[in-house]
């Protein structure tokens, strides 16, 4: 056990918590993280690295953790790739290690490490190119098994997640000293303030580094005072366990609240806050940098700040004998914390030639060994961790030789601090390299700007580049609290520590732990010409793991700069993109899953259809009955039965989904003449006309029957999926192009239900209902209004089946009454419902097109044989000019034809290609294909190059690589070519 006898500001030593790791039970304390509890239990090996499967331990104490990723939970609550440094321990927590097989301690992937010469930078690109088939069957399965992170869950997530909207004047991200003070200032100014902190505690690094005195009080007391003051303010909202994941345009921010990860969930587990803030203050602090040296990835090599966090916050000694390797004064705090806690500090290696300063002196006074201008040349160890280090003198030019061996079980790295500038960068702010402080800090000249052009993101404290408590508080603005703290001397950044002669690297110096990217990889990338930081990143995968390079990017960019002989500022940095840390898939979905994922539109008869055995199909956002199941008949049998009913008796179709748009006004006719390819203004009241709608490219986009209800009013039918689109299309032209026209539109699709009554018995059926509509007198393409069975109806004599057919529209509240009335009176006439598949076969038998089947956005009315519907008289309509363009008038365009297969029993696959004579080229494709019960054979429609001039020609239709079948090109009208059946 490595739990210290005393100390640990966050733990409750009286409350024990039980948990399992890889099935083995452990005990921790209330307040522990999974990382601190495992360290307290002496567990140092927690993961295997991604590429080389090297043993890895915890490196950090926070969200920047690259190594310690685990699977959390089991069964339907299994979640991979969670950072154990952020998991608050609770009773019953189950965690398992990942990226190892069969177990952490004996992992076959270690072979990778032996073969690591085969995995240089860019190995995916280089090694696995040839032969191509080997990728699918050999390389990919092997790489997927050995590489990779945790396994994706296989069961549905039982937890709930929610989205919440909020608005504030000032959003402050980060509850350390700068964030607390900024919230206090904004709160006192009367602003609506939200202050969020990603951990479960306020105070940031001041909780660990409490050697400063603020306003005459110990740091901890000052924090408590700030929190109490903020809690008392009604205009301030405080949220713990809430990370500001992203700052977007115009003050829009996403907050990720892990509401119930530290307990058995009750209520939503995670919450996504969608906040609109006037100002965003990033008090997001800094992240300490590791130092690249040979073997810097053994378990037990940790950030110096993390080492002292474990000592001070959780009362855990990460090592019994620690070597500190530092580039700055702050690192000494770790040595002092360890020493104070009774842990041995084997040596302090300081990169600087002449370390002085208060903290350095305190260490010397405590009797600790300080070696100047010295670094770690090599770490030795095994899977359980560090065993010893060897020093290396710095500044020796070419004559580098390893020095003294020092036995130790922990190495603390203090490589300097990098501001967390992410929120600044997310929304377009620029960062600049500050050579004096060796850090990227926000560029005040290039901040993110809001819609008024004013800056709206400000980084304060460490995030803004402040290195000491005094500077942190002063950066907030306003009256600065008085701070008494140790003065610190300048740091000396170390981007790379040699282990032997200048040129040779000797062993692995890791930069990116999670993606196993080394210093050598970056140098290789630079030599191979990947000089841009963005290219080097992608080639080596530096910073592309789930931690997004929080520890590795700056060191990597510095190595690249050094290799290229450029200044850091000239190499530049990659862009920080949201989210700051990974957020759960559940919280992205929120409540919008299942039935709420996308609302489904249902007609008024939906329940009736369901009761009658309807199998539904999606049509746009609608669900329509595809066919109605009777008894135990098969799919084909029900479709055939429904088709025969329409051809021989009378069928009812729920056509309510057809779009219905009222277009009204003195200029309505003129307007519709522009919207449709054919003439609508000449339509007489009481008449219907089938119309085609194109876009200004000349391509078909919708079709439907237009009825003129009166002199100034038209009713335009659209396709089922097209009503909203067509309505918006009309409005766009009316508002932005022809705004002088006196026309109003209204989309009344859902106000009216509409049924087709189709078949030889249609008229007889309708005449049995009482009312004042004279069905016999209503001519083909006629429209009438009246009363049927006591209900107000609009009757259109139109046909999409080729049979005698009427469409009846009623206000939607009457839908079921009219539908049932029709069924009640027509039993002996053979009346019954038919679905969309029967509808499609019926229309295909007649050669009628369906927008989206026979058209695909590149098809003109001429292509589908509908030149008759394109007016030659009109000066203009949408699509007219485009149809004169050379490509649209050229010979050999694909044209709509019918296809009759040589084998009448064979139904062509939808989309199959028609082949040129030599079989080398596709000359067209099948657009609709069915078995037609009416004519007793298969039929198909196709778009084929120059098809209208090829009638009677036999073409090969490719079925797969080896098979093709023969079909004869024919008219697409397969049945009742003269239209006799609808003219009765």
């Amino acid at each position: 056990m490595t739990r210290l006898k005393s100390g640990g500001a966050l733990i409750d030593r009286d409350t024990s918590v039980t948990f399992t790791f890889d099935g083995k039970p452990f005990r921790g304390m209330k307040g522990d993280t999974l990382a601190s509890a495992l360290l307290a239990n002496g567990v140092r090996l927690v993961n295997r690295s991604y590429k080389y499967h090297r043993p890895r331990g915890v490196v950090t104490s926070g969200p920047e953790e690259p190594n310690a990723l685990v699977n959390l939970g089991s069964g339907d609550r299994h979640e991979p790739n969670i950072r154990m440094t952020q998991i608050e321990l609770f009773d019953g927590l189950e965690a398992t290690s990942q990226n190892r097989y069969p177990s952490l301690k004996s992992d076959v992937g270690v072979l990778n490490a032996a073969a690591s010469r085969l995995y240089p930078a860019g190995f995916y690109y280089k090694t696995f190119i040839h032969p191509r088939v080997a990728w699918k069957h050999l390389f990919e399965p092997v790489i997927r098994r050995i590489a990779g992170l945790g396994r994706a869950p296989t069961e549905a997530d039982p937890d709930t997640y929610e989205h919440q909207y909020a608005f504030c004047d000032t959003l402050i991200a980060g509850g350390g000293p700068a964030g607390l003070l900024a919230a206090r200032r904004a709160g006192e100014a009367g602003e609506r303030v939200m202050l969020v902190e990603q951990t479960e505690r306020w105070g940031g690094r001041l909780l660990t580094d409490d050697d400063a005195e603020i306003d005459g009080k110990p740091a901890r007391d000052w924090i408590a005072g700030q929190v109490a003051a903020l809690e008392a303010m009604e205009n301030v909202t405080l949220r713990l366990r809430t990370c500001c994941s992203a700052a977007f345009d115009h003050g829009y921010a996403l907050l990720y609240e892990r509401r119930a990860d530290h307990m058995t969930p009750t209520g939503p587990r995670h919450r996504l806050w969608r906040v609109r803030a006037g100002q965003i203050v990033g008090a997001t602090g800094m992240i300490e940098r590791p130092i690249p040296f040979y073997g810097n990835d053994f378990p037990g090599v940790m950030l110096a700040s993390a080492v002292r966090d474990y000592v001070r916050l959780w009362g855990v000694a990460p090592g019994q004998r620690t070597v500190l390797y530092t580039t700055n004064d702050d690192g000494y705090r770790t040595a002092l914390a360890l020493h104070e806690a009774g842990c041995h500090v084997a040596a302090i290696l300081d990169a600087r030639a002449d370390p002085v300063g208060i903290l350095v002196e305190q260490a010397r006074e405590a009797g600790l060994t300080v070696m100047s201008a010295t670094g770690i040349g090599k770490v030795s160890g095994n899977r359980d961790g560090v065993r010893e280090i060897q020093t290396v003198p710095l500044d020796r030019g070419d004559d580098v030789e390893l020095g003294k061996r020092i036995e130790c079980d922990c190495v603390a790295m203090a490589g300097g601090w990098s501001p967390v500038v992410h929120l600044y960068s997310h929304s377009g702010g620029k960062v600049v390299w500050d050579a004096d402080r060796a850090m990227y800090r926000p560029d005040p000249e290039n901040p993110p700007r809001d819609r008024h052009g004013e800056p709206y993101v400000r980084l304060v404290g460490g995030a803004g580049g402040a290195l000491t408590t005094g500077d942190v508080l002063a950066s907030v603005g306003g009256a600065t609290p008085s701070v008494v703290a140790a003065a610190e001397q300048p740091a000396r950044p170390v981007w790379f520590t040699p282990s032997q002669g200048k040129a040779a690297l000797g062993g692995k110096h890791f930069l990116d732990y999670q993606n196993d990217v080394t210093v050598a990889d970056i140098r290789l990338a630079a030599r191979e010409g990947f000089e841009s930081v963005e290219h080097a990143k992608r080639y080596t995968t530096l910073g592309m793991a789930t931690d997004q390079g929080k520890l590795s990017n700056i060191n990597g960019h510095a190595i690249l700069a050094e290799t290229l002989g450029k200044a850091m500022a000239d190499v530049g940095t990659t862009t920080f993109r949201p989210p700051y840390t990974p957020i759960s898939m559940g919280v992205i979905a929120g409540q919008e899953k299942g039935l709420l994922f996308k609302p489904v539109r249902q007609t008024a008869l939906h329940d009736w259809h369901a009761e009658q055995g309807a199998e539904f199909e999606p049509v746009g956002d609608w669900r329509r009955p595809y066919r109605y199941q009777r008894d135990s008949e098969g799919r084909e049998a029900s479709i055939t039965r429904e088709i025969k009913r329409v051809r021989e008796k009378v069928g009812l179709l729920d056509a309510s989904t057809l779009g219905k748009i009222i277009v009204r006004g003195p200029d309505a006719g003129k307007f519709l003449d522009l919207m449709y390819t054919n003439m609508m203004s000449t339509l007489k009241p009481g008449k219907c006309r089938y119309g085609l709608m194109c876009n200004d490219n000349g391509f078909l986009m919708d079709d439907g029957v237009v009825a003129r209800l009166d002199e100034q009013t038209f009713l335009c039918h659209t396709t089922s999926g097209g009503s909203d689109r067509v309505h918006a299309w009309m409005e766009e032209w009316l508002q932005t192009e022809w705004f002088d026209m006196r026309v109003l539109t209204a989309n009344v699709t859902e106000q009216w239900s509409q049924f087709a009554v189709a078949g030889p018995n249609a008229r007889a059926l309708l005449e049995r209902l009482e009312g004042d509509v004279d069905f016999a007198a209503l001519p083909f393409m006629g429209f009438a209004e009246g009363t049927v069975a006591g209900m107000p109806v609009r009757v259109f004599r139109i046909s999409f089946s080729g049979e005698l057919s009427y469409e009846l529209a009623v206000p939607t509240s009457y839908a079921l009454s009219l539908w049932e009335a029709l069924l009640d009176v027509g039993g002996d006439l053979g009346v019954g419902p038919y679905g969309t598949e029967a509808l499609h076969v019926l229309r295909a038998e007649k050669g009628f097109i369906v927008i989206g089947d026979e058209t695909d956005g590149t098809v003109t009315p001429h292509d589908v044989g509908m030149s008759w519907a394109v007016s030659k008289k009109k000066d203009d309509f949408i699509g007219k000019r485009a149809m004169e363009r050379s490509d649209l008038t050229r010979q050999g365009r694909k044209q709509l034809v019918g296809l009759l297969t040589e084998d009448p029993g064979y139904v062509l696959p939808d989309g199959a290609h028609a082949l040129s004579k030599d079989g080398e080229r596709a000359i067209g494709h099948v657009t609709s294909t069915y078995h037609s019960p009416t004519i007793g054979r298969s039929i198909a429609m196709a778009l084929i190059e120059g098809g209208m001039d090829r009638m009677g020609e036999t073409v090969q239709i490719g079925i797969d690589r080896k098979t093709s079948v023969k079909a004869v090109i024919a008219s697409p009208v397969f049945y009742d070519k003269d239209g006799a059946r609808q003219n009765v």
Partner: protein
Amino acid sequence: MLLIQCPVCGVEAEETEFAPGGEAHILRPEPGCSDAEWSAYLFERKNPRAVHYERWRHAFGCGKWFHMARHTHTLEIFGVYAADAPEPPQEIRDRIAERTAP
């Protein structure tokens, strides 16, 4: 996500309440125009890293189209104006000149 004010109904709302309609002030040529003119109307669009005059529709609000002057890089919005305006109003052009002066 942009914050946009609809000039027709006055509502200030999130970008997701609006639908973008591309570059503004593109004239639809007469049917007798040349192929090149028609092609320009159909396909040629500016894509500046600068002030952009564009069309938007308050799709999930009042349904009305309007124009907006927006900087495509800084995302600054200089103003919104009526869908039937043939060109940006002087007031908005003045503001752009003032805001983008070197």
